[in-house]
Structures are given as structure tokens and as C-alpha cells.
């Protein structure tokens, strides 16, 4: 953990991300190519879902990553509000659109899976509704962080929203246990063994790791951009404030 503190300085973080990004980008493309091959040509059709199980290789990792992304936003929000961490606000600005995109992928792919399996694109059941709420929380975070002329005020407001909204994460996770939902209960993240055969579990986990690589790549890339953008804004503010 002490090693991670060295990245707290934006300039050092920037140098770190510049070193890591090319390799990470290459690894992400490679992992995704293998993952897609496994999803389409290695994994068998499911005995109940048939070929539509292939949608799960996108849907499930997207759901995990969108929840992980929001937990990250909440952690960064706490870091900003409590310790005034210089990088936290910039990374939160960078991570929110990435998390929102994964939430959108989760909702869209879930809807496209629901039509052939449930006979409908959408039902207002607890899991789907709480997931939609997560997507709106992301949009709220993005809007709030850009709503003020002073970026620091926007960052603080968005951090508060991230901390309040984190209550939605256990609701999403346990909604299928707490309420009667059309959505099936957890089948991978269970305390006992996963209820999925290895022939489907392995491609699913591979795609999850591949998309995690993509998530990290995007967050690093966008954080680096936010650091540079803040630098530009500070320079512009100094120029405006300088005597003619």
C-alpha cells in the first residue's frame, strides 16, 4: 500500500501511466481477441439458454466492472473529502464515464438477452431497476463534476454523490436474494462453488479479466488527460490573473 502512495503525486502518476499504457493497451487487445474467440468458438451452447449464453460473456463482466467502478468512485470521493488527495478528483472525473459505459453495456446486453429468454426487453424488477439507478448515479456524477465554474466545487459535490450512491451496490448485489425477481440469483460469486460448468466459466472469467484490463487502460489514459487539462486550466487562470 505504501508503494501506491508514491502515485499520489499527479506528475509521478503521469510518468507511471505513460510507461504502463502502451503495454497495457497491447495486452488488452490481445486478451480481448482471445476472449472473443473463446466466447464464440470454444464455449458450448448452454442447455437452457442455448446460444444466447454468449451474451453473458459481455453482460456479466460489464455488471461487475460497473459496480467495481462505482466502488472506486466512492473510494476516491472519500479520499478527496477526507484527505484532499490531489489525484482523487482527477481520477474520479476520468473513471465516471468509463463506469457509465460499462453500466450501459450491462443494461443493453441484459435487455437483448431478456427478449429471447424472458420474452421482454425490460421488467421493473429489483436487480434491473437498481442497475439502472447505478447508471443514473454515474450520469449524475459526470454532470455534477462539470456543473460549476470552479472545478473544485464540482469535484466535492460529485464526491458526496458517490458516497451517498454507494449504498446502491449492496442493493444490486443482494436484490436477487431480498426480493422475488425475474433475474436469476448469483451463479459465479457464491460462497460455495460456482453453479456454472467450467466450459462456460473459464471464457466468462477470461472476458472479465480482459475487460478489467480495458477498464484500467481507460482510467489511466483519461486520468493522464485530466492531469494535463487541469494544468492547462491553471495556466489559463494565471494568464487571466496576471497584470497586463
Amino acid at each position: 500500500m505504501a508503494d501506491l502512495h508514491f502515485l499520489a503525486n499527479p506528475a509521478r502518476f503521469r510518468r507511471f501511466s505513460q510507461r504502463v499504457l502502451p503495454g497495457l493497451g497491447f495486452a488488452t487487445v490481445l486478451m480481448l481477441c482471445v476472449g472473443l474467440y473463446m466466447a464464440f468458438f470454444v464455449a458450448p451452447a448452454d442447455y437452457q439458454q442455448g446460444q444466447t449464453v454468449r451474451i453473458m460473456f459481455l453482460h456479466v463482466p460489464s455488471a461487475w466492472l460497473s459496480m467495481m467502478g462505482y466502488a472506486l468512485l466512492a473510494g476516491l470521493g472519500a479520499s478527496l473529502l477526507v484527505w484532499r488527495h490531489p489525484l482523487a478528483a482527477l481520477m474520479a472525473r476520468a473513471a465516471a464515464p468509463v463506469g457509465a459505459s460499462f453500466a450501459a453495456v450491462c443494461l443493453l446486453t441484459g435487455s437483448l438477452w431478456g427478449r429471447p429468454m424472458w420474452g421482454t426487453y425490460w421488467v421493473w424488477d429489483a436487480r434491473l431497476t437498481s442497475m439502472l439507478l447505478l447508471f443514473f448515479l454515474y450520469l449524475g456524477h459526470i454532470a455534477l463534476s462539470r456543473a460549476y465554474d470552479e472545478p473544485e466545487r464540482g469535484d466535492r459535490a460529485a464526491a458526496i454523490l458517490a458516497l451517498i450512491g454507494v449504498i446502491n451496490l449492496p442493493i444490486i448485489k443482494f436484490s436477487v436474494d431480498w426480493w422475488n425477481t425475474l433475474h436469476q440469483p448469483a451463479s459465479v460469486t457464491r460462497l460455495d462453488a460456482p453453479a456454472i460448468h467450467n466450459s462456460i466459466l473459464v471464457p466468462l472469467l477470461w472476458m472479465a479479466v480482459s475487460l478489467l484490463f480495458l477498464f484500467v487502460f481507460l482510467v489511466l489514459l483519461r486520468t493522464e488527460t485530466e492531469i494535463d487539462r487541469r494544468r492547462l486550466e491553471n495556466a489559463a487562470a494565471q494568464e487571466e490573473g496576471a497584470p497586463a
Partner: protein
Amino acid sequence: MSNHAAFILASYLAAFVILGGLVIASLSARNRVRRELDQRGLAPRGSAPRGVDRKR
């Protein structure tokens, strides 16, 4: 791929458009900001985007 092929392909297409679009937007935003930094002479060393001739 059965009569559900349209749903499967639409799912992958939607994911490709959303995530691929985000990658492209992120890369172009980084290059735009770097170019602007470079024009103002604020770019840290080794960060100039391709095709930018830094005057230092």
C-alpha cells in the same frame, strides 16, 4: 447461430460501439490536450503527440 443470432450480434455490436467509441474519444482528447499544452510550451518531456514538432 440459431434464430437468436440477431440478439447476440446486436449485443456485441452495442458493446463494441460504446467501448470502442470511448477508447477513440479518450485517445483523441488526450492528443488534443497534449497538443494544446505543447503549443503553450507547457508539455512535460516525452509527452508530445505524434506529428507535433516541439519548439524548445
